[in-house]
């Protein structure tokens, strides 16, 4: 059992030491997450400021599936409450995709209702990559795209291609995102 205070103990005065601000739990965890990143070959990360691990971009260039040949950029914002809260992810490339809407919102369960602190940045990146391999029409964000995918796969493929080449699908214009 410890005795916490000797009665006369005076705590150090406010001005007596110049303190070094120490690491936060979020920073410890993020350093670990980043150092452990093992990305599939279709993914790269870009850190505009290497000192700022909280904000970065993910670029996915699928090499199979509907979206092969495309290049899609996502912004990641990791909050100070990480990993208690999930990182915030937005798609910055306009994409014709059942689970990503035209504002860039991404419907991925582990980014919202199924987030758990044991999950990592790596897990989120794999999750997003999976969306490009297996778009899911059952829980859509872009309802039109989802309907086409579930009713007419060929049409869906054509629409994806048209959007990636740059052009209209319906009355929505998509910027080119094909890399050739």
């Amino acid at each position, binding site marked *: 059992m410890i005795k916490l205070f000797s009665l006369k103990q005076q705590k*150090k005065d406010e001005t007596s030491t110049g303190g070094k601000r*120490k690491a936060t739990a979020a920073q410890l965890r993020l350093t670990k997450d*980043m*150092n452990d990143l*093992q990305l599939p070959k279709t993914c790269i990360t870009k*850190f505009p400021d290497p000192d700022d691990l909280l904000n970065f971009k993910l670029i996915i260039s699928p090499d199979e599936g509907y979206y092969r040949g495309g290049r899609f950029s996502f912004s990641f914002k990791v909050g100070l409450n990480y990993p208690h809260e999930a990182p915030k992810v937005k798609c910055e490339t306009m994409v014709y995709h059942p689970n990503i809407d035209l504002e860039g919102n991404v419907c991925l369960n582990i980014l919202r209702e199924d987030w758990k602190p044991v999950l990592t940045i790596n897990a989120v990146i794999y999750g997003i990559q999976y969306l490009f391999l297996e778009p899911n029409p059952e829980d859509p*964000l872009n309802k039109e795209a989802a309907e086409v995918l579930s009713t007419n796969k060929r049409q869906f493929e054509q629409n994806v291609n048209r959007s990636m080449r740059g052009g209209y699908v319906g009355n929505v214009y998509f910027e080119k995102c094909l890399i050739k």
Partner: protein
Amino acid sequence: MEVDQPNEQSDASKWSGRWNHIKKVLERPSPFAHPDFEASSEILEFMQENCKLLVIGAGGLGCELLKDLTLNGFRHIHVIDMDIIDLSNLNRQFLFRQSDINKPKANVAAEFINKRVKGAQVVPHFCKIQDYDSAFYKQFHIVVCGLDSIIARRWINGMLISLLEYDDDGNLDQSSIIPLVDGGTEGFKGNARVILPGMTACIDCTLDLYPPQVTFPMCTVAHTPRQPEHCIEYVRMFGWEKEKPFGDIPIDGDNPEHITWICHAACKRADEYGIQGVTYRLTQGVIKRIIPAVASTNAVIAAACSTEIFKLATSCALPLNNYMVFNDVDGVYTYTFEAEKNDTCIACSQKPRNLTFAPKTLLRELIDHLCEDSTLQMKRPGITTTINGKNHTLYMKSIPSIEEATRPNLSKSLADLGLTDGQELIVADVTTPNAIVFRLKITESETKS
């Protein structure tokens, strides 16, 4: 700042019998006291002259804490809060009146207490806890939190852990421990806990005790709403940005026009789907993520925390070990248990290890040491640190863009990198489950640790 008027103050604050109640438990021995407890009048003197407390938050719990602590005999209390007073605070934050609305909580609370409780010297800080560094936090004997933010809790938890000092054998210097007493409430439920940083379970050890924010699947909100909350969430996530009803500004949950607009839009959506139950109150609750609160629960939890602080400071009884939950929905129920310290907690599990180098040592050499040292044997360590409050990535091999940007650091000396004696390095490696904190000792002699 404080104006010292010793004579006048002591006259007004001393009256016969004032401390009769607490003197009974401070000046008499008890079988339930801490083994080191020595009943004497010096304890009250210590509380009044030396003991310095920090109250974080001047809201529902904070107001109660200031009252409870000063009436229990403490005098020197600092209080931090970044908020201003809102009408909806007045049903429980009893130091505030209608005329105080929009004033800083910390200032109004301190002023009220100093006026009502003679001799009390509450010092307000109208700012964020993150605005101060360790030099500020070091001055306190005990810190108590009355917050609704997990971020802030974790931050102060980390701060107090960082103030721990260890001797060369890795033994904790107990005089460096600043106990953290933490309270939280939600409706008729609450909890109070005592944390001895470095010794007992900390906030991060028990992070799973805090429920995560309620979120709804995005696709449900977008296309298959079933509950009124889904409709409100829809307007927040999609409608606001699309329609920009008040221009290109974010939602302000305190602006009734904003809430009214969202409520109408959500009602419209609910009607389309045949969903009932969208109301103004619910809309505001969802948008602001309002937690219900009553005076009584705040009073109970703040009082439980204050009693623990009284026990910690005086040893006149043993402190709570270490967690109590309270619930008075059905009868009154408390449950007291010992939350377990997590051996792999990212915040408190590690004592900083020392690494000793000369200032001329190159970062490359330091990394080589991490990989070659027989007790470490790291594979590809990534290193970050904090200098003057700013995070720095010193080197990280696994991310190409960072590797490229930080590669020049490898051939810089520690001195050139701005690393000084006592600097903490955060090192992550595949060989350890968590990042490790190293404390850099910089000496001219070439001995490595």
